[in-house]
């Protein structure tokens, strides 16, 4: 016996021959390599060491020295690491299965986002070629940049061992480096390729910072826009805060749209329509905010399914909204006019047009107006009534009679329905001697929905008739007639001429 070595195995001390020691050391190293990177590997290694200690103990008695034969006998009992796989005790289940290759971004070989590194691993080619390709295409049309950016966002990072295995493909295609890291099998194709890679790496760092800065700016813009838009929507739609859509400015007034909706659609459909509108409008804004936050902080989230589900909900909301709206729209398919005429018993030489009920007297705060006040609707939520502003026309009468014509127009499911709708419009008009008293608006009775209702009053007067209008009547007249009449004459007298109403020169 030349030399013996003392070793500690599984907490027990052994004397061992030098050649036996080398054999044992190689064996333990092989075991260690096999299990080190497997889940629970250290425990397995420890278990095997305990077992080896036990076998040695039973072989030598307590006094003896472990010989090469003892180690060989032990190995034949415990088995070589290669044999474990044969018997189905492989450290890693993946070792047996061929892995389906997938495209990932490669964190081990990255210049900017690891896109080319990932493609290289997938194609088992030096990524430098793909980098050159992207640069070339970036100079033509900038296409390369967009494709790169899209891939950067779309491809997941191979950030776990199983993903790396999928990225590199089968275990045959990869080697383990000294410290157990997976490394690609391909080698850098040439020295030039190597140098080019280095240059790209340096360039990449700069480019990475630029791209990140752009993404952060873009993300901030998205978050702010989305947030403002959402806030505006909520303020207008939920809190009815007019803001930019104030009634005072000329233009479409949207702030009372949700209230108005109640009167436009059938009561059963109203909550659905409101809910769906909320979804259809707010989902893209929320997506903008979330997308922006992701761009800013650049985190990876497994939110693919959430995006998909949200998209599905959004598309379905649009579809549902379209169907409901279409269904409601069928109720406005036809429109029809009804006309009724009242004659003056005696033709007045001067006609006084005086307003009866005025919009300004109404207790209706909710107003929807279409540009230039051409069409105004007001809603009284307590009485559940809708008021539509009347339009006034004054025309010369071809004969020699004086009359007032009331035209009501409404829409409906069919013509009969439209006529019924037109006839439900309540309007107050009264002729007494030289006085024509008319309301500024017509009323849509409660429990009846708005259906594009309009009401015109046409006054027909023979030529030469002097006509007086009070302020409101004049505004009704003006609002309809888009011509150059003086808006506010000091004396409110007009005269009927062959061509229509004309401003009466005040007598000096």
């Amino acid at each position, binding site marked *: 016996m030349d030399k013996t070595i003392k070793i500690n195995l*599984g*907490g*027990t001390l052994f004397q061992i021959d030098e050649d036996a020691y080398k054999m044992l050391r190689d064996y333990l190293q092989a*075991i260690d390599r096999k*299990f080190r990177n*497997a*889940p*629970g*590997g250290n*425990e*397995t290694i420890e*278990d*095997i060491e*305990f*077992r080896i*200690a*036990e076998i040695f*103990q*039973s072989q030598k008695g307590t006094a003896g020295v472990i010989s090469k034969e003892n180690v060989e006998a032990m190995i*034949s*009992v*415990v*088995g*070589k*690491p290669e*044999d*474990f*796989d*044969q*018997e*189905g*005790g*492989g*450290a890693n*289940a993946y070792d*047996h299965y061929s892995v389906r290759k997938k495209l990932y971004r490669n964190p081990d070989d990255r210049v900017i986002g690891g896109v080319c590194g990932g493609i290289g691993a997938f194609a088992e080619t030096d990524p430098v070629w793909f980098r050159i390709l992207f640069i070339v295409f970036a100079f033509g049309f900038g296409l390369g940049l967009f494709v790169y950016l899209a891939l950067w966002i779309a491809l997941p990072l191979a950030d776990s061992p199983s993903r790396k295995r999928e990225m590199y493909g089968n275990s045959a295609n990869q080697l383990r480096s000294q410290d157990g890291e997976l490394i690609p099998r391909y080698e850098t194709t040439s020295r030039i390729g190597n140098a080019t890679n280095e240059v790209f790496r340096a360039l990449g760092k700069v480019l990475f910072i630029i791209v990140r800065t752009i993404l952060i700016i873009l993300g901030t813009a998205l978050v702010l826009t989305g947030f403002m838009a959402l806030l505006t929507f909520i303020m207008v739609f939920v809190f009815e805060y007019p803001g930019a859509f104030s009634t005072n400015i000329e233009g479409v007034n949207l702030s009372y749209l949700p209230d108005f909706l109640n009167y436009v659609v059938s009561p059963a459909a109203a909550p659905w329509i409101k809910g769906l509108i909320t979804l259809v409008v707010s989902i893209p804004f929320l997506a903008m905010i979330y997308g922006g936050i992701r761009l800013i902080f650049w985190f990876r989230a497994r939110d693919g399914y959430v995006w998909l589900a949200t998209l599905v909900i959004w598309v379905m909301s649009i579809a549902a909204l379209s169907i409901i709206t279409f269904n409601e729209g069928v109720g406005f398919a036809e429109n029809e006019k009804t006309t009724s005429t009242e004659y003056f018993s005696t033709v007045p030489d001067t006609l006084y047009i005086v307003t009866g009920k005025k919009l300004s007297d109404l207790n209706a705060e909710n107003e929807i107006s279409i540009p230039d006040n051409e069409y105004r609707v007001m809603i009284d939520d307590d009485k559940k009534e809708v008021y539509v502003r009347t339009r006034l026309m004054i025309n010369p009468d071809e004969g020699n009679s004086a009359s007032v014509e009331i035209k009501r127009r409404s829409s409906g499911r069919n013509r009969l329905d439209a006529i019924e709708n037109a006839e439900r419009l309540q309007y107050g008009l009264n002729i007494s001697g030289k006085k024509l008293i008319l309301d500024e608006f017509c009323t849509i009775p409660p429990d009846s929905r708005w259906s594009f209702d309009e009401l015109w009053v046409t006054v027909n007067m023979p030529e030469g008739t002097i006509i007086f209008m009070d302020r409101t009547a004049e505004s009704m007249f003006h609002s309809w007639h888009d011509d150059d009449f003086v808006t506010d004459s000091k004396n409110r007298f007009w005269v009927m001429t062959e061509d229509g109403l004309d401003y009466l020169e005040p007598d000096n």
Partner: protein
Amino acid sequence: MDLENTKAQMRKGILEYCILSVLSRNSCYASDIIRELKEARVIVVEGTLYPLLTRQKNAGLLSYRWEESQQGPPRKYYELTAEGREYLADLDRSWEELVESVNLIRSK
């Protein structure tokens, strides 16, 4: 097709099933399990068993306790957990189905 690979895969599942079956009778020291498996010629070398035991233990199917031994280092005594018993019951059923299916096909 690699015959050795196919065999190894077939054995792998069966081996895990066998370990659980041995432990279902009573709690055992690793050597007892090895002896039974060797007798049944399911395994040849002992080293096969240890990674499987670790994996099953980490999956919550097994638990162990340390027991002092008169000779040598302390020993791990393995036993099935409640989850392990359920798992085994499942495997029992699917084993019977498998045998039935394979026999059905082979006897045609």
